[in-house]
């Protein structure tokens, strides 16, 4: 994609600008989201209203937050199969510690547990140079079992208060939403800023693009990689908090598919599974596309198996687009 603009006429320039917009990787996902919203608004009278749109956002919160962590790890050409199980363990820890009557302590304990588990994943990937897929497959299995042991395979009701704060709703005009939605958008904003405006962000992209080249150019790739897994631990803890806000019930069986759902959102959002290319804004759009599809197809009276077919097709379409984009830029 090395094109020089020297000696081009104004018309060429504007054409170049148009083609740059069309090459913008967010264009596809964004257009798909808008098309889906338009279609559902036409075929269902109950889709396009503030209450329903707020529902879609609320339903997207937990997977949406986790998908930020997944994006970071996929950008480093890794993958995190354990991300959902870390958050679920977080909810159980939060519920059990808060049984002692101190919700702030419970919140703190959850952050510590999630970050430690992030460090375990990151340590195994960087120090032992194990493939992230295998490392997180192992930790996923072990954490899921540990969660059930810790919970005694029971669910824990969480009392209203600090731990369910993110489920509290508030109004902006006629639009009622929850603090969980705000928290999700906040996580996206912060990570978007860190990725696009800081040296750390450039290092993340560089590590994912080509580890050898980034090493040669002086980036401490191990340190960057490890930090990504730590940040993902923090994000999982935030997701755990949001999960108790959404359903005030810590359940060891919850979010078993969160790893795959986050990968779905990341891929539909246009981030390359091969690392080094993509953005969290794309992931936000990907999360919303999945939420809009599920909600909209229900409004249209479509049964859930057909909804899954639609989501599956969308993933394949997104990966196909990514493949062609890769070949083109190679």
């Amino acid at each position, binding site marked *: 994609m090395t094109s020089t603009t020297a000696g081009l006429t104004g018309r060429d320039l504007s054409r170049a600008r148009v083609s740059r917009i069309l090459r913008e990787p967010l264009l596809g996902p964004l257009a*798909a989201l808008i098309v889906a919203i338009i279609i559902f608004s036409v075929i269902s009278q109950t889709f396009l209203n503030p209450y329903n749109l707020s529902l879609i956002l609320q*339903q997207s919160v937990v997977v949406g937050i986790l998908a930020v962590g997944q994006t970071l790890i996929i950008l480093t050409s890794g993958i995190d199969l354990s991300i959902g199980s870390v958050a679920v363990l977080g909810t159980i820890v939060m519920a059990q510690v808060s049984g002692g009557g101190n919700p702030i302590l419970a919140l703190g304990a959850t952050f510590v547990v999630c970050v430690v588990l992030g460090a375990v994943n990151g340590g195994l990937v960087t120090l032992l140079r194990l493939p992230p897929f295998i490392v997180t497959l192992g930790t996923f299995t072990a954490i899921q079992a540990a969660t059930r042991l810790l919970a005694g395979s029971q669910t824990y009701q969480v009392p209203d208060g600090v731990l369910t704060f993110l489920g509290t709703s508030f109004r902006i005009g006629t639009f009622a939403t929850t603090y969980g939605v705000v928290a999700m958008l906040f996580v996206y904003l912060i990570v978007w800023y860190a990725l696009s405006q800081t040296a750390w962000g450039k290092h993340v992209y560089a590590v994912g693009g080509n580890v050898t080249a980034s090493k040669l150019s002086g980036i401490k790739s191990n340190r960057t990689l490890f930090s990504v897994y730590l940040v993902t631990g923090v994000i999982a803890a935030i997701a755990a908090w949001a999960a108790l806000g959404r359903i005030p019930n810590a359940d060891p069986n919850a979010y078993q598919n969160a790893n795959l759902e986050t990968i779905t959102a990341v891929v539909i959002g246009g981030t390359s599974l091969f690392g080094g290319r993509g953005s969290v804004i794309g992931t936000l759009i990907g999360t919303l596309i999945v939420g809009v599809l599920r909600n909209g197809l229900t409004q249209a009276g479509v*049964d859930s198996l057909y909804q899954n077919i639609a989501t599956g*097709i969308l993933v394949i379409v997104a990966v196909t687009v990514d493949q062609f984009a890769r070949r083109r830029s190679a």
Partner: protein
Amino acid sequence: MFNRNKARSLRIGAVLLAGSVAFTLAGCSGSSSGGSSGGSGGNVKVGLITKTDSNPYFVKLREAAQAEADKKGATLVALAGAFDGDNEGQVAAIENLVSQGVKGILITPNSSSGILTAIKSARDAGVVVIALDTATDPEDAVDATYATDNKAAGVTQGKWVKATLGSTAPALVMLDGTPGGTVDTFRHDGFLEGFGTTEGSSEIVGQENTNGDQTKAQTAMENLLQRAPGVNALYTINEPAAAGAYEAIKAAGKTDQVTIGSIDGSCTGVANVKSGIIGATVMQFPAKMAEQGVDAVVTYAADGTKPSGFNDTGSQLITDKPVTGLDSKDTTWGAENCWG
């Protein structure tokens, strides 16, 4: 330039494709459900949320609900959790159905307590909520429950196994489902009651959780046969668990030694009773639950009458080896009335 254009058209094509997929799917269901939504108000929308889409039991439940809805001129939207235990998916399904304006929701809850908040919001919005197959905890969190009395079904299974055993000293193995599940607990406790023993008795020589899965049950039984080779009575949470256990028992050469009881009444299970793999099974009637649930919603839509309480849809012992004092039907009757 050519490549760039190609990529551009590819991306636009992808968007159009995704859009048309959504459109087609919506179209499909629109035609299958028949009536137009702008009608005279006679079109009642009913939501059905099963635990999963993968179990033939829930397929039967869904088909029966669909048939009843068609008969009554109602529209059914069938949703499900993504996996056994998926509470979050069921919460989202309830919200989306309420937002769509359904009159009533029939649900087989994955989490008897985790689902309560969502059910309350739905009822507050004027939707009648009915639990099918699995009760909520507490039971009165829904308007009504249509389910098998699982305790009674467990008692029947326990009585049959005990009677078949006769005067032999029992050595009982219990293959449970999922720890903590209400259905699992009712069946387990009912069996012990019918069998005439208590939790912790020395007559119970082994217990494992199988999640009602054939493969897991086989592994569990293989291991338990090592620990308790003298087992002669077997409780199973459902028929796949019984089939898995039978494989292990057959491999150990002990099919004549062990009496196997089960619960469910699937067509595969009944066939297994006929061929002697399972001694007896207690049949449930998911179609009745679905039909009565749909009827209740249609009635509510028509005149505002809400259903209430726990409604037992019954269970029936199926065996070709009847024992005196226990009402049972043979496998021929079973094959005509089974599900799946």
